[in-house]
């Protein structure tokens, strides 16, 4: 009986300690998270790089069979693109816009902070970066690659690290433009989680095709304009809906990205 009473007491003590732990860590969550990220950041960076290398190695081995097909496909695409470049070079304005979209003048357009990925949240498309408040990072700042491709935006900022939502993070929405031949079609991109990104509110009468390039729009002030988002992958058209929908194949690939730029300001 005494043993049973003592056991009961232990459970109560454990329960109280648990409640205190949860309450205190929530009150001091910023400091607690910042502390753990600071002490684990060297290990996280190493493991992130190692994970990428191993993942790329296995990916390469698995895709050996399809490499030849991919090379042939890319050769054809390269030829088509070469032709397009010749046509585009004849139009100076469009060439300048493409150059901007390709991010060849990133440094002249934006004030950038170089950052590295450290980890990915176990429960969503949220990543940690090794720069924080001490480095001038603020909430809402976009994150882009060296090639001018948009990857996401800063969601939470701590002293020495920050968290960013990727484009595919659940419920992240932003305005985009679909480049179809000579036209610009406005639409809204919405993250679906699990690395999926959808387009919605595409006018029913808009002519779009698989492979059309999607870039950011500055409406809504979420991202700067003309940053690469992806290509249209599959279009869903319904007679009963006033709008079309489509899936996007993103240009940004987290598996192969090591460095990223945080856009501090637009010059």
């Amino acid at each position, binding site marked *: 009986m005494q043993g049973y009473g003592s056991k009961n007491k*232990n459970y109560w003590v*454990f329960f109280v300690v*648990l409640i205190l*732990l*949860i309450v205190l*860590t*929530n009150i001091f*969550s910023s400091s*607690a*998270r910042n502390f*753990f990220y600071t002490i*684990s950041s060297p*290990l*996280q*960076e190493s*493991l*992130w790089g*190692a*994970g*990428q290398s*191993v*993942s790329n190695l296995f990916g390469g081995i698995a895709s050996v069979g399809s490499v030849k097909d991919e090379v042939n496909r890319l050769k054809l695409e390269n030829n088509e693109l070469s032709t397009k470049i010749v046509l585009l070079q004849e139009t100076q304005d469009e060439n300048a816009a493409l150059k901007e979209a390709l991010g060849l003048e990133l440094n002249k357009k934006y004030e950038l902070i170089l950052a590295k990925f*450290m*980890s*990915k*949240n*176990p*429960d*969503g498309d*949220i990543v*940690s970066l090794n720069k924080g408040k001490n480095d001038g990072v603020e909430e809402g700042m976009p994150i882009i690659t060296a090639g001018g491709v948009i990857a996401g935006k800063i*969601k*939470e900022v701590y002293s020495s690290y920050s*968290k960013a939502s990727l484009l595919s993070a659940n419920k992240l929405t932003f305005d985009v433009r679909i480049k179809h031949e000579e036209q610009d079609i406005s639409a809204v991109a919405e993250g679906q989680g*699990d*690395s999926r990104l959808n387009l919605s509110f595409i006018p029913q009468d808009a002519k779009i095709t698989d492979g059309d390039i999607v870039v950011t729009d500055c409406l809504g002030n979420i991202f700067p304009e003309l940053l690469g988002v992806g290509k249209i992958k599959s279009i869903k058209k319904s007679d009963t809906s006033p709008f079309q929908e489509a899936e996007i194949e993103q240009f940004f690939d987290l*598996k192969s990205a090591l460095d990223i730029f945080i856009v501090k300001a637009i010059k």
Partner: protein
Amino acid sequence: MKVLLITIFLFISAVIQVSFLAHFPILSRTPNLILLIVLMWNLYEDRDKNLGFYIAMLGGLFLDLFSEGLIGYQILLLLTISVLIKKVLKKHVRIPFTQEI
């Protein structure tokens, strides 16, 4: 000493989960190494011992620290799993290769 070693082990496992295993998603989800540790420990530990609860609590805490939102969700989830295994499952089901009930 044992508790300290377990704490360090769980911390490193959580870091491996969010940084290394993030590159190996299964059905778009990062493999949950901490959950696996909690499950295995509670299945193989004696019903009368309580280290499994401590492991569930600490593992949940580290996962919550590396996630966003309120701290406590993963702690409570893993503790519930731990209690269910220890107090319910092992009481009524004989699990192969573990202690006899």
